């Protein structure tokens, strides 16, 4: 009898565990897999002048035959199309390039800030951390718009430079890739600073003293100890900037010029200007495939990080 009770309890335990595990999986299925398969399905469809503007639609009332027709209507034509037009791979490459350059600039700007924060007096750190996070309290769009006010020909930056006599004619920054870099670096800076700060903050300050004690100058100690030890934070920060920047749409649209070619903009164009939902979906699916590589690398880095600490 007692054995029975034990069994029931075990079963109850197992059930509870299953339910707990199911929560994240349901989340993943509902908010990632289902939308992904919808997009994938659209990418295999054909454009049509209808609502919604693609074919075929699944006609459940037609039963099995409807299902067969539905699958027969799907093909990889749109993906083939992507390979035929140089626009797409140019846009992907250009996005990767812009994302890579932005990431490097963000790192160069973010690292000293994170370093300064980690070396600041402890009573100052919460304030500094707050200042880094503070911009999130304002709408992202408003912040990008305010950059338009700063960077435009008649904007704050040019006015100040002209007034100071540094330049004679306004600098054309707005609507160029430089403006895009400024926008991306500004927007994603906290994502770079926070993980680097976290690793630097965790770092035992006696390590630096040990390095100095063993004959390093301050500079050498930075390169030999601080930098290698903040590698985890640097990698995490770079991925957190690089991955979303590849698909960035708002910043290149608002700050970039006609030369700025990014896959996010191409996607928008396919979807809105061309009403070509199938090709837009194909672009999105390929973008996801491209992003999976850095995401997997990122995960692996995180795992290694955890193992090293454990």
């Amino acid at each position: 009898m007692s054995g029975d009770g034990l069994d029931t309890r075990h079963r109850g335990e197992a059930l509870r565990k299953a339910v707990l595990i199911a929560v994240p999986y349901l989340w993943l299925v509902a908010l990632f897999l289902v939308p992904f398969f919808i997009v994938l399905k659209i990418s295999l469809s054909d454009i049509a002048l209808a609502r919604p503007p693609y074919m075929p639609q699944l006609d459940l009332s037609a039963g099995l035959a409807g299902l067969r027709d539905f699958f027969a209507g799907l093909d990889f034509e749109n993906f083939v199309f992507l390979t035929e037009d140089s626009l797409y791979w140019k846009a992907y490459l250009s996005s990767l390039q812009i994302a890579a350059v932005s990431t490097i600039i963000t790192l160069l700007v973010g690292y000293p800030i994170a370093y300064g924060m980690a070396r600041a007096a402890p009573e100052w750190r919460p304030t500094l951390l707050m200042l880094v996070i503070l911009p999130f309290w304002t709408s992202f769009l408003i912040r990008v718009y305010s950059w338009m006010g700063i960077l435009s020909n008649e904007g704050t930056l040019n006015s100040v430079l002209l007034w100071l006599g540094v330049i004679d004619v306004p600098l054309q920054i707005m609507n160029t890739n430089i403006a895009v870099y400024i926008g991306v670096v500004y927007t994603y800076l906290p994502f770079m600073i926070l993980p680097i700060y976290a690793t630097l903050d965790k770092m035992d300050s006696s390590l630096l003293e040990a390095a100095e004690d063993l004959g390093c100058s301050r500079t050498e100690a930075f390169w030999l100890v601080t930098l290698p030890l903040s590698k985890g934070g640097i990698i995490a920060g770079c991925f957190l900037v690089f991955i979303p920047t590849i698909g960035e749409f708002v910043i290149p649209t608002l700050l970039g010029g006609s030369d700025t070619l990014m896959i996010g903009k191409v996607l928008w164009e396919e979807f809105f200007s061309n009403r070509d939902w199938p090709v837009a979906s194909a672009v999105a699916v390929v973008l996801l495939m491209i992003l999976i590589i850095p995401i997997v690398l990122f995960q692996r880095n995180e795992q290694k990080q955890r193992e090293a600490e454990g």
Partner: protein
Amino acid sequence: MAQTVFAPWEDPEEKPLIEFRNVTKRFGEFVAIDDLSLAIYSKEFFALLGPSGCGKTTMMRMLAGFEDPSEGAILLDGRDISGVPPNRRAVNMMFQSYALFPHLSVWDNIAFGLKREGQPKDKIAARVDEMLRLTRLNKFATRKPHQISGGQRQRVALARSLAKAPKLLLLDEPLGALDRKLREETQFELMDIQEKTGTTFVIVTHDQEEAMTVASRVAVMDEGRIVQVATPSVIYEAPISVYVADFIGDVNLVRGTARARPETPSVAAEAVAGPTAPEPAAAAAVAPNLAAPEQTASERSAAEAALPVDPRAPQPNALGEWLHDKVLFPILGRRKPQQKLLPAPSPQERATSDRPQTAPPRDAAQAKPAPAHADDPDALAGGGIVIDWAEGQPPVIATNGDAALDGKPVVLALRPEKVSIGKAALDMPNTLRGKVIDIAYLGNISTYHVQLADGSMIKAQTANTRRLSRRDITWEDEVWVGFSATAGVVLEE
């Protein structure tokens, strides 16, 4: 004559390796080090001991170069090193947290300092291998710090800080992170390595046992000042203040008012007249009173002369050593090295360990070895003081107390192991009655917490030389505690 005793601080000719000259260190308003002067000699194993916040870590950080003194000078090999950055000092430090570089292997950690010197690769490799051998880490050379145990990490940290063969090695609570057993093993290993390498070690610790075990000299610190600098045995047996007595080991503090005790000329004369008589010598050895230098030279020579007679006799104390080295060695020659030996048991200790605590006094008298009669009332020396310390309690006799303290508040610092305990009245100059409240059984020894009639507590310690079944003092027992007239150290409050 070759000097065999390691006591460079006794030699006025010897130049200190490190000298603090009136060093003061302030952090804002806070004075961490207050006008401190100190000399540390080459090849010493020097311990800075004190509670947290006493300034010992600041001292070490000033030596390493992480802090500069606000006032005064720190000299290394006679040169002022203030302002010399840590990476330019022939000083290395072993950090409390070990501060091993987690991204480097054990080998690379040890090689780190050598590589900074720009030595050729084969030299670096040879030195690292030597260090690995010294610390028995050869097997772990390729491991990362997180892949080895705490004890191994401690040895890596030691190897790394020794690799550059510094003139001075600083150890900041080096064993704090180890468990007790490993700590004890490592203490001996540290001493061993210190001896092998001949490096001067300065260790910072708050653990008095650790300081006593490893150090040649201990500086007890309090609030930015050094209270006492001496060998471990002197620190323990002859603390110069209540603070030191209380900080080092377990102690009973009997607070009261001193009253000069009449001289008993016959006894005193006997002591002076009989230079070979062991009692006064033993008494002086057990509890020398540095504040009472009125002992005659003959007494001192008697003390010194007594030494070679019986190898089991008490060892010389600091005063005795000083006397010997300054006055007597031209006649008697150098003493043999005995530095690392703990003092031999005092007659009191011998008495207590040689007989069962609970045995009736007459058994004790029988068992007592002949020379250890210091606590015999018949042999009680005259002079000294008595301390009135509580209503209804007999005053405590301390023959080693300075009669000049008459009328002043004093504290008698009394180590528990010098207090005997028995069920019957003890044959001792000082005996008190009480009740056992608590017994701390530590295996090798037991400490009895005895409450006296006036409510004050006194601790008595006995070595558990008998099996458990034979010891019969237990909780709530009415007992006598007793101690000799020289068992405690009289300190001015």
